[in-house]
């Protein structure tokens, strides 16, 4: 690869890596596996970098690649067993998704969603894509995206809703700190 392409890839990787790592971690709650996924995604991106760079949407390409691979892997039984058997070691970073206001582990609730709903939630509410874009990434209809988003939110509410409402009602201060803008 030419030097300017190498340099542009390095710059992109450095800029995109934190966002990709957060998405990967939110998906699997495992930094080691998450970083493996990011590395694999970047390898695929590097292989296609001249074309991807020309298309002008490299992060979208990387995000789509990673999420499709995650969804594909979730269908494999060996992956489910492996994830189910993962126990964080003493060297693993403690990155809990606890909301400092309500004191709930929101990421744990997110990770408990079914894969499709998790993917829709991440793309729709974390990555702030519109319904058509999410449908394009996941190769499904817009109606499916809407219904998956609804089910994801319903599942989160069923798991966290009462505690979340109670904590906020207790005067914990202003609620969400971002999300959809």
């Amino acid at each position, binding site marked *: 690869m030419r030097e300017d392409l190498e340099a542009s890839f390095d710059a992109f990787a450095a800029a995109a890596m934190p966002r990709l790592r957060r998405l990967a971690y939110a998906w699997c709650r495992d930094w080691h596996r998450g970083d493996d996924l990011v590395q694999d995604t970047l390898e695929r991106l*590097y292989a296609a970098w001249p074309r991807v760079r020309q298309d002008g949407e490299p992060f979208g390409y990387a995000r789509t690649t990673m999420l499709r691979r995650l969804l594909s892997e979730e269908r494999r039984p060996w992956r489910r067993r492996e994830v189910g058997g993962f126990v964080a070691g003493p060297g693993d970073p403690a990155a809990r*998704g606890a909301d400092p206001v309500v004191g709930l582990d*929101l990421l744990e609730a997110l990770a408990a969603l079914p894969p499709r709903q998790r993917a829709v939630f991440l793309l729709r509410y*974390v990555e702030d894509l519109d319904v058509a874009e999410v449908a394009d990434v996941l190769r499904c209809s*817009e109606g499916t995206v809407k219904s998956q988003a609804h089910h994801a*939110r319903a599942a989160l509410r069923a798991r966290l809703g009462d505690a*979340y409402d109670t904590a906020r009602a207790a005067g914990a201060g202003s609620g*969400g700190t971002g999300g*959809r803008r």
Partner: protein
Amino acid sequence: MNRSVDGTRDRTGEGPEPDGLTRAVAAAVAATPLPPPLVNLAGVRRRGRARRTARRAAVAVPVCAALLAAGGLAWQQPWQQGTSTAPAAPVPADGAPAAPDADGPAGSWMITDGVVVALVEADPAFPGESPPRTELSVDGTDPAVYTVVVDDPRQGPGTRVVVTLEDAPPQRGGDSVLREVTCGTAPGPEVVSCEHEVLAEGVHVVTEERRVAPSSGEGQEVDVPSARAVHPRGRVLRASAYLADDAPPGSRPSFTAAQLRTVVLHPRLVHVDLP
């Protein structure tokens, strides 16, 4: 106005608007503290290059294989057709050797033409009026054997000259090929005379005559000459006079063993490329 699946109104068709809990979860994802990355960019580049190479190969190899297969098929087809139909080589009025068919394949031409030239140079009286027939035999393991059959009815019908060209495969090289050209080892009718010589260039040549009884059982036995040569690069050339089963009594070959020896040493046949 659209209505979302959870019953909330959705003016934009973008599905339900996020509530406080949804925003809180999204914010938790966005605010996740990052430990030092385990991603190795040098490894990304190295494996990315390998992946790109593999992807290109995955595309290029089948395409090349398909092209080669198609090319090979197109190349071999005219040869195989030659086994069932005699080539329509025009016969010159002046009795010169038959020229190859102008519409035939270039490789077939070169071999057929080379054989006719070698026969004419070996025996200038050879008319070469009959169109030569070229055959290709492939059995899947050995390399192809190209056989050119030329009628030579000067001393009776049913008399032919058969010239074969072959590049010996490596596993047949060396001693095994040389044994084949050693006197007295090849099966067949009674050997009347046989001479094995090694030329200065390392060419092994065998010239021999075998006594053949006529197929019809009538008439006298005939001495049929042949010559074989193994050239240092592995090219094996054989030239034999041949009496067909339907040859009437009295037919006998016109070529001598010495003339056939000239044929198997002819430079055009030694150096022509076999497709």
